[in-house]
């Protein structure tokens, strides 16, 4: 079982990495975040063919749910945000960890519910309309939140800070992301082998045919998006604890940063494959971290250019390239005999 061995080695690396490279813990945590959002984007974008530009909505919503749950357990939220950092609001370690334990799943579940409701409308849309509609949802989300004073409006909201020392905090955040990421990976690995996985592939390849064969297309689309939203929302909740203070437009509903990064990661690695999003996230993150400081203020321009180049010239990604070059690695049989029948 060389595959098992491979997974075990990867697992060991995952556990050791934050201790071996303590200076890079935050970067490694961010890498896991990228893997999670890329992998969950791929569930609808790559496997189901519905290219959402608005999955960041669930990230931002997850952050705010985490804040509201964690704070709301102890203090009235409106009063807390009204004081805007003034006033004395302290959280005991118990309150902090209870908030953390409750708010991460709560954020996931809330986002999954949101996906059901929004998806019921947006999944009537196809192709470009779906992409633009979901982008609209994400922008609208950010704008609404930034006008909502109860949760801090445009000023944002502050989470309680970690009750123990800062190094430990970074390690905790790293492992929260890592556990979520690993859970997502193995969940996807299982999901894509089920009938459901085949059905969403069928929706991607020819939705009309899938409908004509009586597949519950709407139901499956909603479930897929809800699962995807659950993981993005939970990741957002972890980010809320990691960032401590965040505001709606630039951090939570960051349409043009993380919102588009996740798509680029998937495209780089290869859409519709299990490993593609993971590899793509690593490629993108490493590239970004290595080059970011050399652009001297032109980072975002370079990023836009990167998106354009990837989309135009390298859309099938690494896995797509390999599939084209080495189809037999992917179990695709090629007919060598003359076709008869």
């Amino acid at each position: 079982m060389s595959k098992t061995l491979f997974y075990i080695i990867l697992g060991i690396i995952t556990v050791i990495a934050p201790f071996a490279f303590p200076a890079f813990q935050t970067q490694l945590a961010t890498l896991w975040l990228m893997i999670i959002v890329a992998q969950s984007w791929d569930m609808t974008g790559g496997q189901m063919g519905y290219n959402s530009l608005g999955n960041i909505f669930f990230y931002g919503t997850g952050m705010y749910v985490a804040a509201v749950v964690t704070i709301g357990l102890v203090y009235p939220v409106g009063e807390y945000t009204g004081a805007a950092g003034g006033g004395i609001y302290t959280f005991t370690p118990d309150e902090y960890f209870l908030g953390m334990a409750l708010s991460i799943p709560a954020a996931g579940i809330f986002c999954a519910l949101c996906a059901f409701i929004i998806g019921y409308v947006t999944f009537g849309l196809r192709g470009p309309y779906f992409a633009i509609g979901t982008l609209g949802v994400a922008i609208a989300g950010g704008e609404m939140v930034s006008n909502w004073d109860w949760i801090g409006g445009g000023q944002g909201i502050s989470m309680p800070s970690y009750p123990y020392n800062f190094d430990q905090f970074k390690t905790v955040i790293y492992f929260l992301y890592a556990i979520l990421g690993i859970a997502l990976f193995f969940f996807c690995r299982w999901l894509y082998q089920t009938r459901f996985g085949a059905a969403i592939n069928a929706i991607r390849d020819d939705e009309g045919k899938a409908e004509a064969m009586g597949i519950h297309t709407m139901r499956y689309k909603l479930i897929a998006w809800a699962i995807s939203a659950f993981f993005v929302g939970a990741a957002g909740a972890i980010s809320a604890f990691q960032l401590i203070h965040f505001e709606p437009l630039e951090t939570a509903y960051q349409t043009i940063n993380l919102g588009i990064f996740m798509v680029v990661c998937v495209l780089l690695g290869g859409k519709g494959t299990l490993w593609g999003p993971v590899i793509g996230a690593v490629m993108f993150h490493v590239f970004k971290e290595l080059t970011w400081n050399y652009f001297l203020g032109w980072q975002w321009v370079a990023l836009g250019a990167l998106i354009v180049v990837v989309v135009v010239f390298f859309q099938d990604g690494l896995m797509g390239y390999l599939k084209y070059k080495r189809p037999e690695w992917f179990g695709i049989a090629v007919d060598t005999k003359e076709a008869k029948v």
Partner: protein
Amino acid sequence: MSTIIDVSSVSKSYGGVKANTDISLTVETGGITGLIGPNGSGKTTLFNSIVGYHPIDEGSIKFEGQEISKKLVPEIARLGLLRTFQQTRIYGEMNCVENMLISLPHRKLSLTDAFKKNTRADRDKAEQFLDFVGLYEKRFLQAGSLSFGQQKLLEFAMALMNEPTVLLLDEPTAGINPTLINGLIDRLKRANSEFGITLFIIEHNMRVIMNMADKIYCLAHGEMLAEGTPAEIQDDQRVIDAYLGAH
């Protein structure tokens, strides 16, 4: 025999063009019903009206006594009314067995079943049907690499896998090697008799439809021209005129 599809007084026009005018027909449970007519006579339009691709202007369409003329494509398909396409639609990126497994009757699956992997029995069934249409040898090839005729057979096998109550076939023999047509007729008949699937077939090839159908309807210029048994249709002067372009 009881009626399973009941189309009454259906009209459909595209802009000013009347594709179907006041069409009424019935499909009997367990039988093979044929729909013929020259090109542009409105056969495919009528098919599309039945399976829900566009709204109809007037009339009603009932399936097992239930009105379906306002329902959407997936809702109608889930009632067990399945169609194949004139321009064959299969999943070209997947191999034949995967194509078959996708065609499992999802309408009969509960949500928990949908989250299970395909069983050995499913695979056996898929291979049986592939064997039935003569594609067993090719079962692990990508469906997109098959010839058009083979894709057509695959689509037929996928339809069988779906265990439909009624199967609407849009020109099943078009593009198939003439030497294989007899085999296909035989398989269609067996699908009807062995699996108990009611067939409703659009066909251009007179020899094929005369060999199979219990009852034939003939459309011309969007109107019902004639109906009857194959023998009656064959002798009908109006049908002969329509096909020879005497109008």
